[in-house]
């Protein structure tokens, strides 16, 4: 049998694109881990909550931009509340209790978002909105027409858009972390929060900020994911998919989240098609990404770009 190159490249491109989607979720994780050492399990439900809020607002025929602004504001308020009522009382506790607290938070948000809104599955035609709001208000053809055909390789336009959004977000975050005063205080807090407090960085404000920013990232990631898989509980599972991604990249590195996403995205597709064929079984996608992550971690125990833990007795 001839090797199908077009199919192969299409697979890689598809993998890269879904990798970008994973990265979007992973960035939110990394941000919180970087600044407070917490492995935030509630990221997935935050995605759901943000996307659900947005969808319900637009279904109530609120303008796209207004809905976006309102949702963002909600997420910011939410971040501040989390800081005040969860992070502050839990300061200085073991990482495991902090992790469990976020799992508790995940349940809380899940119940809350389904209580306030509902638990039905919502479709989100983000492509329509984007055309309507941004690019082509009259004919609505830029995003709704799905694919770019390039050398027989079909690429979804929406995926390209997601990639651009992710890229922009990373650039903004990088500049924010490296250049701004707030970004530097964030890095200081992540380094050693007692020392950061000693030099006068307002810890609680920094944490509130991180949770707010994470909320906004969750909104963006949630909207992009929702376009693919609809707004429902499946969004929460996106988080578990993102776990190997951040672990490969290293919990503390934003570029790591991107690279990890790409590796998992491509690896998963490759594994499913070629390895699955070889083994004569299907559905190895569900665990294959974890195995890829394991292999990487065996060589680099703290991820590709993660901070190496120096342990002293």
């Amino acid at each position, binding site marked *: 049998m001839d090797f199908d190159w077009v199919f192969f490249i299409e697979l890689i491109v598809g993998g890269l694109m879904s990798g970008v989607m994973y990265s979007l979720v992973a960035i939110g994780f990394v941000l919180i881990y970087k600044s407070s050492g917490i*492995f935030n399990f509630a990221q997935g439900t935050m995605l759901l909550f943000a996307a659900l809020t947005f969808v319900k607002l637009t279904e109530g025929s609120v303008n796209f931009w207004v809905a976006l602004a309102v949702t963002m504001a909600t997420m910011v308020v939410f971040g501040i509340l989390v800081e005040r*009522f*969860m992070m502050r*009382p*839990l300061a200085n*506790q*073991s*990482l*495991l*209790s902090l*992790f*469990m*607290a976020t*799992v*508790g*938070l*995940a*349940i*809380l*948000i*899940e*119940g*809350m978002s*389904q*209580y306030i809104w509902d*638990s039905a599955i919502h479709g989100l035609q983000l492509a329509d909105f984007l055309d309507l709001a941004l690019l082509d208000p009259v004919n609505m053809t830029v995003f709704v027409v799905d694919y770019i055909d390039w050398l027989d390789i079909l690429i979804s336009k929406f995926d390209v858009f997601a990639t651009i959004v992710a890229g922009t977000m990373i650039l903004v975050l990088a500049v924010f972390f490296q250049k701004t005063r707030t970004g530097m205080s964030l890095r200081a807090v992540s380094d050693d929060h007692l020392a950061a407090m000693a030099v006068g960085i307002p810890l609680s404000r920094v944490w509130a900020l991180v949770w707010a920013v994470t909320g906004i990232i969750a909104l963006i990631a949630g909207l992009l994911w929702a376009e693919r898989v609809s707004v429902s509980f499946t969004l929460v599972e996106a988080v*578990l998919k993102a*776990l*190997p991604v951040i*672990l490969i990249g290293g*919990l503390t590195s934003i570029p790591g989240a991107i690279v990890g996403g790409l590796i998992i995205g491509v690896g998963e597709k490759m594994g499913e098609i070629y390895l699955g064929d070889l083994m004569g*079984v*299907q*559905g*190895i996608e*569900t*665990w294959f990404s*974890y*195995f890829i*992550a*394991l292999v990487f*971690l*065996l060589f680099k*125990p*703290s*991820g590709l770009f993660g901070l190496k*833990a120096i*342990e*002293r*007795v």
Partner: protein
Amino acid sequence: MIYRETGTFSTSYIEDRKLFPIPFDKWAMGVFLLFMVFVVPLIASDYWLAAHLIPILAYGCAALGLNLLTGMTGQLSLGTAGFMCFGAFFTFNIMLRSPEWMNLPLAMVLAGSVTGVIGVIFGLPSIRIKGFYLLVSTLAAQYFALWFFRSYPYFLNYATATVTLPDHHFDLFGIGDAFGVDMASFEAKYLLSLGIVCALALFAKNLMRSSTGRNFMAVRDMDIAASVIGIPVIRTKMLAFFVSCFYCGVGGALFCYAYLQVLGIRTFEMNRSFEILFMVIIGGLGSIAGSFYGTVLVYEFPILFSWAGDYLLGGAFDTAVVDNVAKILYGILIIALLIREPGGLAALWLTAKQKLRTWPFPH
């Protein structure tokens, strides 16, 4: 004054090492166990046995396993349900495919051992990978288990979704027929679960008092320091994975055989792993009794809540609303408990004991 420990003096090392050094504890435990064995099967209805006591025992067994791994040895695991799945499926297959003399407890022990070996395989990365990074290994175990049994229907005896577990699997050397007892009744299942769980809990308690248990805790507190003082870290971690997964495997088998009475893959989805992790955290990491306190609370909370919702509000709200409010309260409960008492219910109990000790003169 209610709870006293004065006046008990050990005069030999043997006495000093007793399981329950305080007579009050010993008597309370004895009475409790006698009550559970002899009185409960007589007075409890089938509903209480089938829907409350048996599942709590099965969950408790798995929670104990996870607590040995996470609470005692410090290796975080999200693959509990996966290991339970292995245990349940292997038990079923051993029962199905072996000769007459095979019986359920033995099959559970065998299946548990196989699960333990699988646990060691998935635990191998813990030699190099630490902390949250280890989650990936246990998650791999979780998803691998589900995928494995879905892909190879041989293990489900080629049934489509679930298998109803046959009653004759419960027969122990024909005891049931000989004495005219129905071995597949809820009472018998309850006593079987209780016996297994008590034996495993006693074993765990003794394990923790031995040098093996102290090695576990040394590795948890700081594995580098442990290796410096000469504890074989790798062997200790692998042993912890083996023991823990053994418990989880037996717990899974009990869950299917004694509680659900059907075997299926959907029983062991990811949510189950989280549920059991909650039991351990809420009950108290590193406490054997805590595993059971946590199990009772986590298992009974939704039931109590929906009952209270029904009773107080008289069905004014539909079940979805009650469900969601239960979730919200549950989340708040977890966070509040972690804030107030990070040691879980077990720590709460210790505080209560201290209060009882000094009551009625608090100083």
